[in-house]
């Protein structure tokens, strides 16, 4: 039977080969695409075979470094499955986009995207803290290299920011993991199951710091802007679409179950930060002068909302947060690819030079409008469903909490509408007039459409997803929910 280890192995080996061996750009790109499609195929198999009541599935558990009590213990529950599915889809689309839309890429860029996927799959399936850490820190390598070598003009500052924030947070977590693993009662063990409820407060905080930076949670989002602005479109899509989910997922699947007591004691803080980040990100998104700015701040807002959902410590909140992460992954990846495409063709992402792109470009207008509608959570869209779940959870917690959160959702509608109108309508921008960017065609379209289709599918049948995740989500927060007063 194919297990998650196979998928990680395929992504890692193909990724490494494509990165290191001297392929041509096209050969390397197609090989990487093939690898990512193979992983996607495996994940689709998982989705069909998944048994919601069976707990962790498709896993392997073998001794890895027995001297230190480290096991290769990977398995997939409903929440993992959702994250793995979007990871596979977004990676395939990102590689496809880079392959068809970018002439200046190198074969290594595709391999590095695939390596990122391998590390992310490990993060989303690890049941051992050591393996989790390898994925969590390891994914920085390909992303940093992609940013440092193929980033925009100000990539150096961006790299410094990313390193200063994420590496710091991640490495401090290493100390916490060592503490948990080596103080296990029956000799060293890094199994997550053995770490439940054992950690002192400082370990909780170093974990929370690492995850908050990665998410990013207000006020630790300083690295996000430069990183999203300086990355190439497909890397920005991976960064905001799936790499950031490592943070949100880890809050739900690592922090809360491992530290139920602290999670419940400090939940108010995370809820407050989530609320502030949700409002603040939305307000800033409304003021941004360019597409990437809007998408980046909307990402901060959305992920803050996810953290809020997680720390409601309820069935509704956890399911909603997972669903929200899936939606946001698809939406922000699609938005970054679209924005990047417009930026490449029109030479700028600034609204001052864009505008009027809808004229004579029916396909682009349609795709942007669908993604935009999904992003502003019109009733009936999948994002509406997930936000609704979190809102319900918030109301169940306290009516005023739900009321404030609802205001944030209105703000989200405002900045998305502004973005759509600034890009598609209004007066024709000077660059649009002079450069005459073509309509969205073939390559880029093929790369973006799967994301849009997935959004449409989720809007039509959200229950297909929620029925697979809700048991797992409930199980993850159960212990913390019990502790809560």
């Amino acid at each position, binding site marked *: 039977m194919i297990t998650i280890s196979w998928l990680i192995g395929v992504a890692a080996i193909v990724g490494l080969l494509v*990165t290191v*061996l001297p392929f041509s750009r096209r050969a390397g790109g197609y090989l990487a695409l093939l690898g990512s499609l193979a992983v996607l195929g495996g994940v689709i198999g998982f989705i069909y075979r998944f048994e919601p009541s069976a707990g962790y599935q498709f896993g392997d558990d073998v001794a890895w470094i027995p*001297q230190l009590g480290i096991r290769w213990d990977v398995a997939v529950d409903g929440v993992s499955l959702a994250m793995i599915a979007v990871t596979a889809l977004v990676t395939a689309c990102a590689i496809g986009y880079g392959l068809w839309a970018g002439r200046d890429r190198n074969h290594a860029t595709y391999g590095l995207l695939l390596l990122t996927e391998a590390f992310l799959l490990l993060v989303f399936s690890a049941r051992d803290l050591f393996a989790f850490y390898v994925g969590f*820190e*390891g994914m920085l390598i390909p992303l940093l290299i992609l940013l440092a070598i193929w980033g925009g003009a100000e990539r150096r500052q961006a790299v*410094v920011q990313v390193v200063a924030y994420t590496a710091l947070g991640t490495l401090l977590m290493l100390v916490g993991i060592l503490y948990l*693993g*080596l103080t296990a009662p029956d000799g060293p063990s890094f199994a997550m199951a053995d770490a439940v409820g054992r950690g002192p407060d400082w370990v909780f905080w170093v974990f929370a710091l690492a995850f908050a930076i990665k998410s990013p949670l207000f006020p630790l989002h300083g690295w996000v802007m430069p990183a999203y602005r300086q990355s190439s479109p497909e890397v920005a899509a991976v960064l905001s679409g799936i790499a950031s989910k490592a943070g949100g997922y880890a809050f739900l699947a690592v922090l809360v179950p491992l530290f139920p007591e602290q999670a419940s004691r400090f939940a108010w803080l995370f809820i407050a930060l989530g609320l502030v980040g949700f409002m603040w990100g939305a307000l800033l998104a409304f003021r941004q002068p360019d597409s990437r700015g809007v998408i980046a701040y909307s990402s901060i807002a959305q992920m803050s909302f996810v953290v809020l959902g997680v720390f409601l410590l309820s069935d509704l909140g956890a399911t909603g947060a997972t669903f929200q992460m899936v939606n946001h992954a698809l939406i922000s990846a699609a938005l970054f690819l679209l924005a990047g495409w417009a930026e490449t063709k029109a030479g700028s992402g600034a609204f001052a030079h864009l505008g009027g792109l809808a004229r004579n470009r029916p396909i682009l207008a349609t795709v942007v409008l669908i993604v935009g509608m999904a992003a502003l959570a019109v009733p009936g869209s999948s994002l509406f469903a997930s936000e609704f779940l979190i809102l319900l959870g918030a109301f169940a917690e306290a009516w005023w909490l739900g009321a404030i959160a609802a205001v944030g959702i209105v703000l989200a509608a405002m900045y998305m509408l502004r973005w759509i109108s600034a890009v598609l309508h209004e007066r024709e921008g000077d660059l649009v007039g002079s450069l005459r960017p073509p309509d969205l065609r073939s390559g880029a379209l093929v790369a973006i459409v799967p994301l849009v289709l997935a959004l449409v599918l989720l809007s039509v049948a959200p229950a297909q997803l929620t029925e697979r995740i809700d048991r797992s989500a409930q199980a993850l927060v159960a212990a913390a929910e019990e502790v809560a007063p």
Partner: protein
Amino acid sequence: MIEYPSIDWWAISPDIAMGIGAAVVLMIAAFLKGRGRAIGTAVGLITLGVVAGLAIAQWGDDPVSTIADSMQVDQVTQAVRVLVSACAALTLLVAFGWSRMRDSGAEFAALILFAATGMNLIAASASFMTLFVALELFSIALYALSGIGRDRASLESGFKYLVLGTVGSIILVYGIAFLYGATGSFQFGEVATALAEGDTGAPLVILGTGLLLVGLLFKIGVMPFHMWVPDVYEGAPTAVTGFMAAATKIAAFVVLARVLLEALPAMRDTWEPVLIAVAVVTMVMGNVAALVQTNLKRMLAYASIGAAGFGLIPLIVGGPDGVSSLLFYLAAYAPVTIGAFAVVALHERDVRGIATLESIRAWGFDRGLAGAAMVLFLLALAGFPPTVGFMGKFVVLGPAVENGWTWLAVVGVLASVISLGYLLRVIAALYDRSQRSGVLLPAAPGLGSTNLVIAICLVLVLVAGVLPGTGIDWANEAARAIAMTR
């Protein structure tokens, strides 16, 4: 009638073999003059293979104390023999195609073998006499090796190393003399017993311990005794630099562990605070100083200073866990440094000059394997998974956290965040798309063996990073041999 001490010939056979090999290679150098390069290198490699083979054959033997208890051959000794031999062999291969090897190749091989002999002996020392003689043996060989390039920089490096190294040795001898005065013995065990029963606060003892510590810290190149490291590493031929950074560290750290844990356990209250201060300052400042370097060898020199500071953590932790993690860390560090310096050596031959952040611009696109390998070595230096650098860090920090040195572990972690600052600069320069390098001259001759070393190190760094279990087993086994008190 003079009583001669009994000698366990089997236990010291690797050292004898190494010495004979070195002498033979020296003869080859004398008689074959310029034509001795290939033969000298071949004999050198065979010798190193024999030494490593003998050490492996002795693995698992009971610890032996021989020649009137002045040498001890235990698993730590065996581990050092294998590691140093491997480093020396890789160094010979890196240097093989180097232009200087054409007229003094055999001398080079002989000096490397002499240095390796000294390193193996110092790791086996059980008395301060052995320690000092072995230290001088490998130091003098290294002085000569540093100056063997005969260009200005190399000669300056050799001379600087000679002068400063001698000062270090003198301080060390002073410390040994004071300790001898206080305890009446050179032998580690006897010194330890005398100190445990005597007055550890006596000025003579404190002074002796302090001077001894300074002398040894000087050799491992930690702050504030690091001044010689950047200059010597920069000027010395690059193959030699790699050897110094990997093998010298192994020998010096192991002997430091022996001295502190076998001879001076009673003085822990004196040396522990010193080591803590030195470790913290070195980890942070070494990496900070590396941030501003543009010369690649200088940058790697400061990185290795920072790494040496990190290597003090296991000594502070002490115990079998500490020694085991120290051994694993040193072994993990070796292929990373030798590999990184091998890439630098390759680059120097490509550009016929020194390696700087400027000269390596876009070079990674031209030399696929070397470029990718360099990226991996740099990531290993920064301690990223899944490289062996990460396992080294993990194995060192583990016992530290376990034994209540969490804050020290946090400092170590912060230092590796700083190190990312310069390591990523190198990666970004290697693959700078904004300009073409234009440096690629027609392939320099004799790159084959250097490329082979890079490939070997690459495989080691990855495989040992993903599957470190066996290495940890060996380190644990070896660590049990050191007599330890906590």
